[in-house]
């Protein structure tokens, strides 16, 4: 099953990844082969009764509703790439607002 270049671009858009024209064909090819490879899974009967398996505890633990210290050794002003007047700063969305 082949992944078209249009589909690669659509998926890339969802993932906010740019794909340049040069790498697009190789990427489409690689993705097609990987997806063909994992499509072996369709050998499993599409049995609705097979439950999914998730390791770990069976049920969520409830945390007490208490305000606790942040555990931050230093604040966003020290690790943020652009921080002004207490806010994270990002360029505006081009098309609206």
């Amino acid at each position, binding site marked *: 099953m082949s992944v078209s270049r249009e589909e690669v671009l659509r998926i890339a858009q969802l*993932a906010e990844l740019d794909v340049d024209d040069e790498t697009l064909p190789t990427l489409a090819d690689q993705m097609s082969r990987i997806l063909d490879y994992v499509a072996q899974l369709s050998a499993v009967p599409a049995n609705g009764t097979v439950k999914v398996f998730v*390791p770990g505890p069976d049920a969520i633990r409830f945390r007490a509703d208490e305000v606790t210290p942040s555990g931050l050794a230093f604040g966003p002003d020290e690790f943020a790439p652009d921080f002004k007047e207490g806010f994270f700063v990002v*360029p505006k969305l081009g098309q609206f607002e």
Partner: protein
Amino acid sequence: MSDAKAVADRLVKAKRLNALLTPPKDLRKSLVMQDAAARPTGVLYGMPVAVKDNICTLEFTTSCGSRILEGYRSPYEATAVAKLKAAGALIAGKTNCDEFAMGSSTEHSAYGRVLHPLDKTRVPGGSSGGSAALVGAGAVPAALGSETGGSVRQPAAFCGVVGIKPTYGRVSRYGLVAFGSSLDQIGVFGRSVHDAARVLSVISGRDPRDSTCEDRDPLRLPTVPESLQGFVIGLPKEYFPPELDPAVRRACDRAIRMMKELGAAVREVSLPHTPYAVPTYYVIAPAEASSNLARYDGVRYGPRFNGATDLRGLYRATRGQGFGAEVRRRILIGTYVLSAGYYDAYYRRAQQMRALIAQDFRNVFDRGVDLLFTPTVPTPAFKAGEKLADPIAMYMSDIFTVTANLAGLPAISLPIGRVKGLPIGGQLIGQSFLEDEMIEAAYALERVVPPTDEA
């Protein structure tokens, strides 16, 4: 003081491996400070432990082998790291790894590949190649790595050291940068089973910050057994295919013989869904990764790259330039298998297959088998560049390791021989939360198997 200096010296001596990402100057300075502050009553007092660069530390930067976190100083530390420090250990720098733990050779790091400690033309394995190489070179007695599909056991096997993957939920993941959340666990490398097990014991146990970490006491270490009397060891036939590398087969046969001599009962078993394990893994892991890596958008941390004129531009520039090719590929695969129209055919189907794989193990353990023994990797360390052209060829390196991650089971790789000087690893897979039995058997095996003998 002199301890810290000696530790630093040993690590710096191994510089040529490119296994350590921490600059020597920073390393020395920090080790001196840590040494002064270390708790003398701690059970790991003075033990230097290197930490894979996808685990958050306060002492050094955390880049996950990626440009997108280049220079990132985490404002908090992983629970496992805090536990090491509380036990008096020294955090001996951050180790190089495949970017965001995605890879099986540590050739996908943005900071250059890691060299195999015994043969610089070969890979140390991955994704925790840096940690494995440092322990293999004798630069540190122990190191933390992480497992998603075998990223501790496979490099342990390649580098001739011990590598343990705990049961899922045994060790807190708080502070482990997430790749495949339902598969990830922090694992431990050691020169010996005892070194690795000691460190695992310290970092294990409950953590309210990690909802997937079980509410259990830390792992209690077993004593070294006199024999393997009473142990039933299963040999899953799917892990000993006809095309298995002859040297690996010889080393395994020898180890099996020795286990029998120690009194273990050995039995052939079957895990019939094994052929589907790698495809299952390569649906689930990328899917979870595509979501886990969405937070790397240049907004709140990490460097900003050129080309960000508007918001979408910021995202594209950051993620396009910050992520390497393998990471981008996996994010795209993951996004695809979760997207509308494909969820049932891929992700849901893979989770069902996962249940069947886990059931295979339960069936075998329910029939009186205590542990499984298998080769860790189909081959010894391959040459750098050998598997880069075809992603799937690289993925096949995980064939014997991914099943334990999918089923959430503990597993340990220990050196069981060499072929032309290259280490070969043998793997024990244990039952859920029964690491002590697994470690007990590993202790026994370690005492009798000659790890550096040609197989």
